[in-house]
């Protein structure tokens, strides 16, 4: 595994941010990995980021370790796990500069518990890290063209995005306030930030996706891209009113599925919609590979 940090940063005006969210259990993490891989295959240097203390991708891809510092996953694609306290530490190290002060700050048990939980700090630190590349340029350089963030599910994601605006309203002066405003500007920039809401072709997940998309639009000012995941082959082109023979439970299920896909597409039609197939494969990396191919063709149209 190569250490990604040693590579030269590219001179870009911005790092594209792709946030993938959706209700729990819709395949958000798989979709995020596939999107990241398709971007990497298109020649972009890409970092796949998961949020929190514990990695999902570690078990999913059977990796030795996924941590704060990026590790290579595939050519052009690195992976990292960012938690609030880790992001805050890096930011503090960057700002405090004096190592002894930094040590005093973070090796103090009281500060340690404070940064873990002080309201809004971890969320701001995570978004601060995500948006730390150009044009903000805060903290160490990030040698990437784009970041794909396997973000929190629904409500937690909205709360995360609200943090900078909330903080800049609560605290109007000082570095925290300035940082909050510039973070908020970037997550509201349609040129730099892209949002993807993943759902399944079923009634409730689509309802939730639509609700989430509305809130998201009112928070950032533009519409997310919809991703309908697990679309079973044959369900987009057959006629749901036709009864398949023999009258088995399987054929009934296929008819219902066809109807569900059709209804979901209809309900999501006001959005840019990407349908991803149900890949009948149990090897995580092959699933991600085939979805990445789908993404490449779909994104070529955008």
């Amino acid at each position: 595994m190569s250490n990604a940090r040693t590579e030269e940063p590219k001179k870009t005006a911005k790092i594209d941010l792709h946030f993938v969210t959706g209700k729990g259990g819709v395949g958000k993490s798989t979709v995020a990995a596939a999107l990241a891989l398709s971007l990497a295959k298109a020649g972009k240097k890409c970092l796949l980021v998961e949020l929190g203390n514990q990695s999902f991708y570690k078990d999913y891809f059977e990796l030795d370790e996924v941590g704060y510092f990026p590790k290579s996953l595939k050519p052009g694609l690195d992976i990292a796990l960012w938690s609030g306290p880790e992001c805050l530490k890096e930011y503090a190290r960057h700002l405090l500069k004096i190592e002894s002060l930094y040590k005093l700050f973070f090796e103090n048990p009281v500060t340690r518990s404070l940064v873990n939980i002080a309201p809004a700090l971890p969320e701001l630190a995570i978004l601060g890290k995500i948006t730390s590349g150009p044009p903000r340029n805060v903290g160490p350089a990030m040698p990437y063209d784009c970041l794909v963030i396997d973000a929190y599910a629904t409500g937690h994601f909205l709360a995360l995005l609200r943090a900078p605006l909330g903080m800049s309203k609560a605290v109007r002066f000082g570095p925290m306030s300035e940082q909050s405003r510039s973070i908020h500007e970037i997550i509201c920039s349609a040129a730099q930030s892209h949002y993807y809401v993943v759902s399944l072709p079923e009634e409730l997940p689509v309802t939730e996706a639509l609700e989430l998309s509305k809130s998201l639009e009112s928070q950032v000012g533009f519409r997310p891209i919809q991703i309908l995941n697990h679309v079973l082959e044959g369900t987009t082109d057959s006629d749901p009113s036709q009864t398949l023979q023999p009258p088995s439970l399987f054929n009934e299920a296929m008819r219902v599925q066809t109807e569900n896909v059709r209804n979901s597409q209809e309900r999501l039609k006001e959005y840019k919609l990407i349908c991803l197939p149900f890949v009948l494969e149990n090897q995580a990396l092959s699933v991600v590979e085939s979805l990445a191919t789908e993404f490449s063709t779909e994104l070529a149209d955008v």
Partner: protein
Amino acid sequence: MSNQKLQALLESARVIVCVGSGGVGKTTVASALAYQAAKMGRRVLVLTIDPSRRLRSTMGLGERDLAQVQEPNIKGELWASIIDPKKTFDEFVLRAAQHSKGAEKLLQNPLYIQLSTSLSGSQEFTALERLYSAHESQKYDLIVLDTPPTKHAIDFLEAPQKLSALFSDSVAKWFREPEGQSLLVRVMKSGTRQVLKALELLTGSEFMGELSDFFRNIQGWQKKLEARIADVHGLLVSSTTHFVLVSSLDKAKVMEAQYFAREIKKGGYQLSALIINRIQPYWMAESIERSANQQEIKSSLEQRLIDYYSEREKKVLQVESNIPLIVKVPELRENISDMNGVVEMALRLFEKSSEKPELS
């Protein structure tokens, strides 16, 4: 044979906590366990978080936050309640501070508002607070708690400790040291002051002002919060409290369940069962039966799906288990998110499901 262990659990448990990541059917499973216990004659309360509108109305909840569920098979009582995290947290703060001015002011503090949103663990604390109050009321033989969706099951148990750390005196006292201390105290605290200075450099003086305001205002009730967290912990490690982990059939998720089982044991809690939901689609058993009767399966997609699900199940169950009871539940024929779905889930859990024998 099948399900006797799960049935026995419902007979003896006083508290069942259903944990698991989002989207695995936790609410339905929690409600089904409660329903089954009520069917057996117990007085049961199920505490749910954000149930679907249909489940809400078919449970008779509507806009109320507590209702008795009417269903012909219930011999005991089934009560359903919805937890409103923000409301419960605010109420707890006000109660703990005995409705003092400080508490009213705290509710307006921007940092408190952020704290009482979903990211800081206050939701988890609130769920446990409701659980404890219900337990204290002694109105129920069994309380089943559906927990807030977390990325990882373990987050749920860590949340109260995190919250408790925020309110621990050692943190709070930094921000409300009275003026005019002796020189000795000041010298001893010079390290602390440097740390605070660093924090101010990072965040700005206005933020520090809000932060110390926040800590001054929580002064009145933090002892109560800590006491409450200790009481709740006592209840969670009691021998009549059982954790049930709900998972989907996904290798990464089941591996996480193993990790959770280890962690939970270390904490002194007991993980009594793992329920793997939607282990295969509802049509699959019939398809397999058909093919066993030598009726050719016409659609190649059907066969490929069967192979896919069978392989997935095999792969997942290969993961070595340290969990005493694993219950597998197939997908329901219709994805019903109402009381009928709960009744159907109970049927799957207690009458139709297969149970994996104990593994050492």
